[in-house]
């Protein structure tokens, strides 16, 4: 315990010193962005030009002009006047490799970004804060935990708001309003689907809990969806996971091929599979105690399950290792700018 603490301290001190040195020498932990100006009018004229060219080609080929295209062109043209002077700068993250143009001169479009550099450092320190939990619960972890809980809850809410509520609910209930405000891309074919009143009403009932009286009404939407879930899952699982799996298990135990004759390997494989499935199923029987013949069959079943779990464990280990590799990749390459063999910075 004692000496391990010392070791960790030493590690931290050494690491910290190293960072200060690197940062001081300005050879790590900076983020750059590529700026592009977007001119709405210009880009629209470009698109119209493109359509025109295609039209020319079609005429040349003596083809009939597809309505969709010409219609699209008109729509674009109609909007041109409103676009006067609408411009903004597009920001794209830039790899360190992009700092200089192919010619070797520094690329003027690529600029140092304060916001992202700060972000990079927050990310790096956050990474350490979370990892510090391995040491034991500590103030850094508590801090990171507090942030990640708050931020991620809000993240989920925001996503739910823009996609679930705006797109799926209002997009269906008041498409015209949405088209004029946040969802201009909503196809004009989209008309009000009154059926979506139902989810709206159910939601209101759900929120009724907050009301001082009659909170029990919120059980109705719950009941609706739990009922729906039960119904949908019942058929879905019985079909795909019961019927289908049984169908897949029906196979010849002795695989005989007219050309090669008996295929021993395949036959054994099939036999083992079938035995495995049957014994495992027997293990799951609730009606009989695991004694006698059933008991021994069930035991074989358990062995199969254990092999499955063991392999599952093996495969999972792989995956998890890949995850630290990824985090270290971030720390070493994106933040510390260490030269990693295999990727050229």
């Amino acid at each position, binding site marked *: 315990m004692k000496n391990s603490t010392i070791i960790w301290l030493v590690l931290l001190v050494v690491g910290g010193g190293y960072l200060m040195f690197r940062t001081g020498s300005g050879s790590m932990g900076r983020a750059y962005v590529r700026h592009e100006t977007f001119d709405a009018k210009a880009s629209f004229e470009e698109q119209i030009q493109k359509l025109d060219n295609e039209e020319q080609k079609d005429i040349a080929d003596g083809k009939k002009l597809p309505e969709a295209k010409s219609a699209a062109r008109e729509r674009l043209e109609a909007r041109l006047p409103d676009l006067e002077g609408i411009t903004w700068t597009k920001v794209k993250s830039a790899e360190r490799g992009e700092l200089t143009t192919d010619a070797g001169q520094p690329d003027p479009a690529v600029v140092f970004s304060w916001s992202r550099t700060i972000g990079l450092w927050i990310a790096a320190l956050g990474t350490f804060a979370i990892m510090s939990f391995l040491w034991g619960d500590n103030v850094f972890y508590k801090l990171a*935990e507090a942030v990640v809980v*708050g931020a991620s809850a809000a993240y989920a809410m925001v996503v739910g708001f823009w996609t679930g509520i705006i797109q799926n609910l209002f997009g269906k209930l008041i498409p015209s309003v949405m088209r004029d405000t946040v969802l201009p891309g909503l196809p004009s074919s989209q008309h009000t689907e009154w059926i979506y009143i139902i989810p709206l009403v159910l939601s209101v009932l759900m929120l009724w809990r907050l009301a001082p009286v009659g909170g029990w009404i919120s059980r109705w939407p719950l009941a609706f969806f739990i009922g729906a879930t039960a119904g949908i899952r019942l058929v879905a699982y019985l079909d795909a996971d019961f019927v289908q799996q*049984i*169908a897949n298990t*029906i196979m010849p135990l002795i695989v005989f091929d007219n050309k090669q004759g008996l295929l021993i390997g395949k036959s054994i494989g099939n036999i083992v599979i079938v035995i495995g499935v049957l014994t495992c*199923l027997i293990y799951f029987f609730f*009606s009989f105690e695991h004694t006698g013949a059933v008991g021994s069959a069930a035991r074989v079943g358990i062995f199969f399950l254990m092999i499955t779990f063991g392999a*599952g464990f093996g495969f*999972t280990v792989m995956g998890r290792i890949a995850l630290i590799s990824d985090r270290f990749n971030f720390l070493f390459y994106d933040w510390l700018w260490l030269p990693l063999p295999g990727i050229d910075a």
Partner: protein
Amino acid sequence: MTDRVSWTVALLAIAVAVVGLSERPAMAQATLDNKSEAKAESPPVEEAETEPKPGNPPQPPSDVTAIDRPDDAGTGIIVKWSLSPDDVAKVDEGQTRKVIRYEILRQVDGQDDFTLAGEANFQKSSFNDLKCDPNSSYIYQVVAVENEDSKSTPAAAATEVSPVMQWWDTRRTWFLVILLMVCGAVIQFIRLARAGRSLKVRKIAGLEAVNEAVGRATEMGRSCLFIPGILDINDMQTVAGITVLSRVAGLAAEYGASLEVPTSRSLVMTTARETVQAAYLGAGRPDAYNEDNIYYLTDEQFGYVAGVTGTMVRDKPAACFYMGAFFAESLILAETGNSIGAIQVAGTAMPSQLPFFVAACDYTLIGEEFFAASAYLSGEEHQLGSLKGQDVGKMIGVTLVVVGCLVASLASLSGGDNALHDVVSFLTDNVLGDKGFLP
């Protein structure tokens, strides 16, 4: 009362089934050798205008037929044709394909021009047009295409087709039979148990442990932690978790142990509160129920884990229950629980997470056992009936597999195709597949 409702609805379903069976997809079908008639019959389409082109366009396909697509709501038509003679299976070295693709054109309600309904790759001789409307009628043409400038003359189906809406999906008739068998068994056994027939079921170690765990938490004066998985209430595992929660809450209320339930979904929180409150009431300790012990953390998987593990190392619960749908977090939770020396009971139907629960928890309910848990813990005889029903389901499965495999083996021994092969394919394609009620 609801029992009766459900029976009526179930019967209705069967009635629909019977009606549906009597219906067969209507087929409007027609073929004719194209070229001359096709032109005469359908007004010239653009390809026709641009003819003749330099070079020779591919020969058109023939025998175009259009039939209603069976088992749909009258939205589909299947167009079939015989490949153009120029559409060869294999092009020899250096040669380019004469037919790159087929264009399927359709004319709606006899309006005068044909519009593109879709395209099919070469060597394909059928196309599903799923953009149809039961109230319209369609005439189809198929054009073999070498490139934009070289297209064959259109081959047309003679008569027009309108899709028909079927009231019954004949592909699923057998599935209904199986569904009724399994569900029937479950329902029947529940009724038997209700009628007072005593049912014997084996013990499950993990379930004995639940009592013990709550008991120990009480002795140590520490809390119990219950995690109902990280999926929303629209997943059956969460529902199963909630049913187990109600039993655990009941015990906690009895023993007077404190129970904490952090959830990762708002709706799960809502449901859990209803459940736990009811459980405390049932145990006669409504006063002991504290709504704030059942709280929402965040929807995001690892935000949630961060929160829960944090709580674990600080509050050091003596018993941890993980009952529901779990993903990667399973091991983080189990390991942390392990390090604070809590009794851990887990139950999930996520095969991928079972290894870790099995290894790191004291008891684990594997797959089906997890769904059986609430029935066991409820202590209500009639709930055990459902388990017997499940066994019948497994029995059906076992029988089908055994019979199927035996027949299949005989078939493969007997070599060439014969009745045995037909039996196997009937079993796999019709009974267990979607090829309809009869071969």
